[in-house]
């Protein structure tokens, strides 16, 4: 790994933040945070969700105004009234959720909001953008619609956009969340080149392997700076302990306890969208009792569609889905859930909860017309409340009781409400799509324990996650999905992360013959397991 240029103590820092405080009502999101970033430095901001990383970066980018403290850029004190001031000072930002217009071209996305007068600044912008792309050895079609680009390319559009606006300090918010390990490696190689040109980068991340590539790490916990260390003088273990405030216990998945009879089988399932684009093609998977099947893949490669197909939320065009000998095709989701299937959907607030309903009301969502929640024509509110009180106790949901409105719950507590509902249903199958995304380490552990308990109770479990390390730790087998196709099913715990990453990208760096062999092998393996 290349070492960043040594900066003499006399050099002016690119960014110096002194005792920055930002409050939201009673909540102190940043409490006297200080931070120094030198030119050419890759500086990592490490912290759990809610530690104050986003608030800090929003203050640096002019989206929030800090209540106290000051910000110096290249030695000059700055007060950012809006992002325009931050951009003028040379700060650029790539948001975790890209801020692009899918129907615009790459060029339009970059130039919108720049220039003056009536004319589009397209003609003068094009050569400048092309020059930036050349410097990054990037092949970017400026006239392609952004919606047609891969997620990785969209990331580059964001970076080029920031550089075009003249960024000398680039803030990257979880840039690799949507990338394969290989794409991430490529990104980091390019970042190194940019650093060599004198650019400074603040990297917001919680992935330890990336964090270790930074020159310096500042760790935030509950709005405070816990410490700022040179990575060369620290270790993963030390940084994790700083971030969480205690040493983490590794998950002990244990061995699966059941004989592995097939509960759910997905056979040759294909699905197309309205325009005829293939979403799932010829997907075959067997789900065994007491086993966790992991699903690895870059977001948008058919994971969501597979979950929705199994739950009957989206019709399939070919193939069959069987639950213990009964076909699920043409059944509606409600019937399928009643057969013992639980579904923890990807987007908890959008798919899984009614935000304006109480915890009690959310716990019966879907079963509200069934006994025992119905009493004649009306809902049995008394019983509902009792059940909710029990769930709040069992799942230790932090709230003001059964009537608490779900909208006001934190992400972790909201997820617990969904878990309470879905685990109760999942006597046979539990489907979890990104169940721990955006949650704190403590809650993640809790969710994982619940999933393992369900496994030990003999349910078949499908678990999709972006955290490959979690998948490897938890799953008995891991299926890799790419463009709606299952490219391989690998044995769990011994799986090689690099191999999964290669398959997530479509296995492109392999010979065609190899890939076929690989897929056949995967099928054989699958068959072998179900025997």
């Amino acid at each position: 790994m290349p070492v960043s240029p040594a900066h003499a103590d006399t050099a002016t820092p690119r960014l110096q933040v002194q005792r920055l405080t930002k409050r939201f009502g009673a909540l102190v999101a940043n409490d006297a945070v200080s931070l120094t970033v030198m030119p050419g430095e890759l500086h990592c901001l490490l912290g759990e969700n809610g530690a104050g990383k986003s608030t800090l970066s929003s203050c640096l980018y002019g989206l929030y105004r800090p209540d106290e403290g000051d910000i110096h850029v290249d030695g000059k004190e700055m007060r950012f009234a809006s992002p325009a001031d931050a951009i003028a000072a040379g700060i650029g930002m790539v948001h975790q959720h890209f801020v692009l217009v899918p129907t615009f071209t790459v060029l339009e996305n970059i130039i919108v909001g720049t220039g003056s007068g009536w004319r589009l600044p397209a003609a003068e912008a094009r050569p400048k953008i092309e020059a930036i792309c050349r410097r990054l050895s990037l092949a970017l079609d400026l006239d392609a619609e952004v919606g047609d680009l891969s997620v990785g390319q969209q990331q580059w559009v964001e970076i080029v956009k920031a550089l075009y606006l003249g960024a000398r300090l680039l803030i990257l918010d979880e840039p690799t969340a949507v990338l394969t390990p290989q794409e991430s490696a490529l990104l980091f190689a390019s970042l190194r080149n940019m650093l060599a040109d004198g650019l400074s980068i603040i990297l917001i991340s919680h992935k330890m392997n990336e964090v270790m590539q930074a020159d310096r790490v500042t760790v935030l916990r509950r709005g405070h700076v816990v410490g700022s260390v040179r990575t060369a003088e620290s270790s993963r273990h030390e940084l994790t302990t700083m971030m969480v405030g205690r040493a983490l216990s590794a998950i002990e998945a244990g061995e699966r306890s059941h004989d592995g009879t097939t509960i759910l089988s997905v056979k040759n399932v294909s699905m197309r969208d309205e325009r005829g684009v293939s979403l799932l093609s010829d997907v075959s998977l067997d789900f065994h009792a007491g086993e966790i099947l992991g699903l690895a893949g870059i977001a948008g490669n058919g994971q969501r569609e597979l979950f929705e197909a199994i739950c009957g939320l989206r019709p399939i065009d070919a193939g069959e889905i069987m639950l213990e000998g009964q076909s699920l095709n043409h059944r509606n989701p409600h019937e399928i859930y009643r057969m013992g299937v639980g579904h923890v959907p990807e987007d908890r607030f959008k798919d899984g909860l009614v935000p304006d309903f109480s915890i009690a009301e959310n716990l019966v969502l879907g079963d509200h017309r069934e006994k025992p929640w119905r009493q004649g024509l009306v809902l049995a509110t008394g019983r509902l409340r009792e059940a909710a009180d029990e769930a709040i106790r069992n799942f230790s949901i932090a709230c003001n009781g059964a009537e608490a409105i779900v909208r006001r719950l934190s992400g972790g507590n909201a997820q617990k409400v969904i878990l309470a509902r879905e685990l109760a249903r999942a006597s046979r199958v539990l489907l979890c799509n990104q169940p721990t995304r955006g949650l704190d380490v403590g809650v993640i552990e809790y969710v994982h324990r619940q999933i393992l308990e369900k496994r030990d109770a003999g349910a078949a479990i499908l678990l999709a996650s972006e955290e490959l390390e979690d998948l490897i730790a938890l799953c008995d087998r891991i299926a890799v999905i790419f463009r709606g196709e299952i490219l391989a099913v690998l044995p769990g715990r011994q799986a090689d992360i690099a191999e999964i990453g290669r398959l997530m990208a479509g296995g492109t760096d392999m010979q065609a013959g190899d890939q076929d062999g690989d897929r056949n092998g995967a099928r054989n393996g699958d068959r072998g397991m179900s025997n």
Partner: protein
Amino acid sequence: MWSDLLNLGIIVSVLAATIRIATPVLFSALGEVTAERAGVYNMGIEGTMLMGAFIGWLATYESGSSLIGLAAALLAGAVMSLIFAVMVISLKIDQIVTGLALNLLGSGLSTYWLRAAFSNMEKVPGITVLRTWPVPFLSDIPVVGPVLFNQGALTYLAFLLVPVIWLFLFRSRLGLEIRCIGENPKALDIKGHSVAARQYAAVIFGGAMAGLGGACLTIASTAHFVPDMVNGRGWLALVIVIAGGWRPGWILAAALFFSFLDALQLQIQGVGIAIPYQILLALPYIAAIVALMIRRRASRAPAMLGVSYRRE
């Protein structure tokens, strides 16, 4: 009797009427598409047109000048949409509810004002209607001349506005920003530009155009203002924007289609075909529902249409 409609003179007069009738809805629809491209769904067009029609008429009557009347109608439309913009953009009140409230305000206020201003008169007075402006030479071309070039000045203006709005939305810097706001306002916000300011401008322009559209109904066609005389044209403008896929050229086509139905209806009654007039009058509204039914799902609608932008 149906064959009477195929006479050349009748055809020319139907087509000329189509162009004339399209004028008010075209103004309103072109204004509305600008607002909707900026993500703001102004459902208060009906009420805004009504105020434009009334104030334009009133100002023409008081001043004796159609030009002052038109200016007043523009201003009335702008004020109406300013109220809307404050409620929707700054206060983030639901756009649909606010739009409906604006319609009720326009209807109530214009009716009351009319009654209050002329309560002591036997009969509400009339104004002199704008005359047509035949374009020299061009209006002498057979068929095309009387259809296209023997219209009022406002009609020429409305049709000229179609390419102007297209150029603005698709070929200008500000137009790109406006479309960006309709698709993803944050993309502009994080470059440090005010989303609200651009939305205000788009909405107020849209309102002014609706006011002008309303004024066409009085200043350019009838001497009197009648309560609720806009009679659904504002709503048709909304349908036209959807049916036209938020593109000025197609909006023109949709506007011509609906006004053709209206023009045909006048002519059918004129030649004495025995269809109850109620069916003919209901035709554009039925056509509007059918048009929305056969149009594929609103895929080309701005992604953030109707959603108030909040940072975070």
